[in-house]
């Protein structure tokens, strides 16, 4: 037997549990896809989608990565990482939210990347503030950025 039998005996892999988790993960994946077809309001859709993803991730972490019976030192490092990750998420996002009022399409006109020549003169590239830009008479040759084509939120 290998000298790391302590590792083997430590978490006797019970295969049956793995298949149960496998089933659960498939069901949750299907659930995520279905939820997206329900055309829920944006924020609700986001929270549900992320909650399902978190459940799936914790299933994989707890059973497949044997985090359930792990030592506290590993929990310590993971806890530290989660704290720093939360900081990395929250602060830049608060900044993005709070400086929203200062953010504006360029005062000196936002020039969309098109063929330089003819598109310039006839299209008054008024800064597309928040509504879809007015359709120009003749669509510019290259495809407009996807963002501008479809309706906003």
């Amino acid at each position, binding site marked *: 037997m290998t000298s790391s039998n302590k590792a083997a005996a430590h978490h006797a892999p019970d295969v049956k549990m793995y298949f149960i988790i496998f089933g659960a993960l498939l069901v949750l994946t299907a659930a995520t896809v279905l939820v997206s077809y329900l055309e829920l309001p944006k924020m609700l859709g986001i929270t549900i989608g992320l909650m399902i993803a978190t459940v799936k991730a914790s299933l994989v972490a707890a059973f497949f990565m044997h985090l359930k019976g792990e030592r506290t030192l590993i929990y310590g490092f993971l806890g530290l990482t989660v704290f720093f990750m939360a900081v990395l998420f929250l602060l830049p996002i608060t900044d993005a939210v709070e400086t929203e009022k200062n*953010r504006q399409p360029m005062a000196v006109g936002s020039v969309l990347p098109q063929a330089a020549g003819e598109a310039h003169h006839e299209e008054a*590239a*008024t800064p597309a503030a928040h509504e879809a830009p007015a359709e120009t008479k003749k669509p510019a040759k290259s495809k407009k950025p996807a963002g501008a084509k479809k309706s906003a939120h």
Partner: protein
Amino acid sequence: MNGNYGWGLPIQASTFAKEIDLGIYAIHGIMFAIFILWSVFFVYLLVRYRARPGVPSEHWETGTLQSMIPDLIVLGIEICLILFYALPAWSRIKMTVPPEGKSNVVEIVAEQFAWTVHYPGADAKFGRSNAALVDAQNPAGLDAADDAGKDDVVTVNELHIPLGKPTVVYLSSKDVIHSLFIPEFRVKQDAMPGMKIPVWFEPTLTGKFEIGCAQLCGIAHSIMRADVFVHTPEEYEKWLAAQHPQTQPY
């Protein structure tokens, strides 16, 4: 007023300059005091406890709290600085912008190595601008179709402001990050492309002051300077009228 720069802080030519200088002097006073005290104690320790034959070292230990007294003093000073100085002054200077009705509003667009200043003119409304129309005669790209732009005035590397009322500058940049820095007014704000950031100051002295760029913006970052002319209100009106309204060559 240019030219009377010395080695210390430049003269205070705006309302909150005094407030900022108060903070700088106070903090430097505290720093010198702390440094002098520590140095005296440090030199005393070096002399008193230098290695002398036959005199063994003796270990001494104190409770955690007693050992943290210097830190608590520094923390106390810092808390006072934050509560009584930093928070109120910061909210006055950076977080509140004076109402545009009673202040002189200007748009400054920074670009690689020049400041384009755009005044709304008498109707206090900015004409629409469009990058496609930017050229030598029309640095701000004013759109002729928009009548609000008829009386707008555009100057490059010159900012003319009246005394007596606050000036609100809407700062943005065409290409890279610049930073509007007026030493005498103690004003500094990065001009971020894609953002229009309000900066305000109220001059207290008339005369000519200097604008510098405080954020590395390319090879000519050091020669990207401009001048601020603070006029008395009458002088300012005369200057504004003298500027022929920005005509748009068809």
